[in-house]
């Protein structure tokens, strides 16, 4: 081995060293610390906690709130993900369609993406004010006789849930469209030409060429959306009272974790247990999706 090769080796480590150190201090240690805390009865009021084995976890499962939060999070995520991927798929097919040759594709796409960049906290506060009792939605509805009198929209379970789902959809369908389009345009045109020569219908071309070749991208969208969805906080937290009202219908995993953390005693042990459980659930689901939807042909 000559001198330059040796020099190369050393410098590779030097370049990645800040990341590794940063990760150990700010990434890995907090995870380990959270895991440790989840087995203690530590609160923000006490300096030292006592080990209480699996008590935090058994309490979580004895308490309906945790399962409610997990159920809500899944419900809110799935109901926004389906229309999100559906509309994005439709839009990206239209935008890349050679027969339609739409004008201003870049501009449409750019506009649809805009909500994604806005501050979720501000978006939630906006919808909170739009749908509040004295808010403009009530004003307009009553003025045009669509409603006999003003309604406490945000105290109705279906409305609160529908709003969270709508906002999530509104913020993400543009981003999903951009990713799907990038995937579709990377499919070689000659595949479609060959299929056309063979007399394939456009439906056949979609199911036999587009979908299979898009699979890696679909898995990426699926997994990133799931991981993001399981961490949903800003919008359901700020849309109502910060406790998932009405009747805990929009109480998500992270809101539950936060309420335990911010409770009068600050039960950080119990809050950590929520974090650990949801962390495990999300990671296992993400890995399962990637495993089951992996490219099986590649393995052979």
């Amino acid at each position, binding site marked *: 081995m000559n001198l330059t090769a040796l020099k190369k080796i050393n410098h590779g480590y030097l370049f990645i060293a800040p990341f590794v150190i940063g990760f150990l201090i700010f990434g890995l240690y907090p995870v380990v610390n959270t895991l440790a805390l989840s087995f203690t009865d530590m609160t923000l009021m006490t300096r030292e906690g006592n080990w209480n084995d699996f008590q935090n976890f058994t309490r979580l499962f004895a308490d309906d709130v945790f399962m409610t939060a997990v159920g809500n999070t899944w419900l809110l995520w799935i109901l926004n993900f389906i229309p999100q991927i559906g509309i994005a798929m439709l839009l990206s097919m239209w935008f890349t369609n050679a027969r339609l040759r739409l004008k201003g594709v870049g501009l449409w796409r750019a506009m649809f993406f805009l909500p994604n960049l806005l*501050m979720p906290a501000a978006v939630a506060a906006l919808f909170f004010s739009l749908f509040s009792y004295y808010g403009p939605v009530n004003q307009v509805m009553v003025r045009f006789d669509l409603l006999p009198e003003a309604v406490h929209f945000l105290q109705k379970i279906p409305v609160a849930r529908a709003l969270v789902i709508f906002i999530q959809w509104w913020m993400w369908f543009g981003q999903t469209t951009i*990713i799907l389009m990038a995937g579709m345009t990377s499919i070689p045109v000659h595949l479609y030409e060959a299929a056309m020569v063979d007399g394939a219908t456009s439906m056949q071309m979609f199911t036999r060429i587009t979908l299979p070749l898009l699979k890696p991208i679909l898995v990426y969208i699926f997994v990133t959306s799931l991981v993001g969805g399981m961490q949903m906080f800003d919008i359901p937290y700020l849309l109502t009272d910060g406790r998932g009202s009405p009747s805990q219908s929009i109480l998500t995993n992270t809101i539950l974790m936060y309420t335990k953390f911010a409770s009068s005693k600050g039960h950080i042990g119990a809050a950590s247990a929520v974090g650990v459980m949801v962390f495990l659930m999300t990671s296992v689901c993400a890995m399962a999706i990637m495993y089951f939807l992996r490219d099986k042909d590649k393995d052979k």
Partner: protein
Amino acid sequence: MFKDYRFTTNLLRVFVYTVLVILLIVTIVPIWLVVVNASRSTLEIQQGLSFLPSTHTLDNYGTLLGRGLDLGRGFMNSLFVAFCSTLVTVYFSFLTAYGLVVYKFKGKKLFYNLIVALVLIPLQFSIIGFYQYMSKIGLTDSYASLILPLIANAGAVFFAKQYLEAVVVQDLVDAARIDGASEFATFHRIILPLAVPGLMTTGIFAFVAAWNNFFNAFILITTRDKYTLPMLVQTLRGDVYRTEYGAIYLGLAVTVVPIIIIYAIFSRYIVSGIAMGALKE
């Protein structure tokens, strides 16, 4: 038959454009309402919807200030945090990515897999352990706790690596070495200037993420003077502002408008950046 084909294509086009326009309205109206209503008085807002701005921006600002909400200060705090976050993210992600692209070393594959895994792992769930640890070392209620973790920003490294792989030419690196440039000088003087478009894309995403970050700031920052904009926005839902709609919308507009301006200028970088992050996964 050819005429038929043309007719159905046009019919299809009309349908598609109609759907696009409806989606556009759904996308834009909420944003537009915020911007317009920020300049209208509460009375005007309550009299009905309008899509034209009015002249009460300053009154609304005064209302907020009168109730102890210093929007200007929050704006400067957010700007400071977002700016530092951007610098830290961009510099360290490209530093790390350069190490991965240019050098061969033991454990490189493992390190790369770690980064890919970190992109997907929901680290938000370790915030409690993070908080308790920060409070032990006295970094709670300090912007450092928001900015320093970005030294290890896996998503940014992933993007920077994709970018550098396309840009860095080994010959260029070797030529710099022959000229006697040190490894770090090569990175700083030759590679970084070459990678400016990639730095911009990473920087824009880092800025937007930091600007919009509510959760971490909400947990870690406690002094009111240090509140960033999302934390102030959160207080806008309180009873104090219950019917001060003009003021509420102004608070929201201040958080939203800078991002819209950034997007108007840099949308090209942003759209291509999203596609690039996903394609090579």
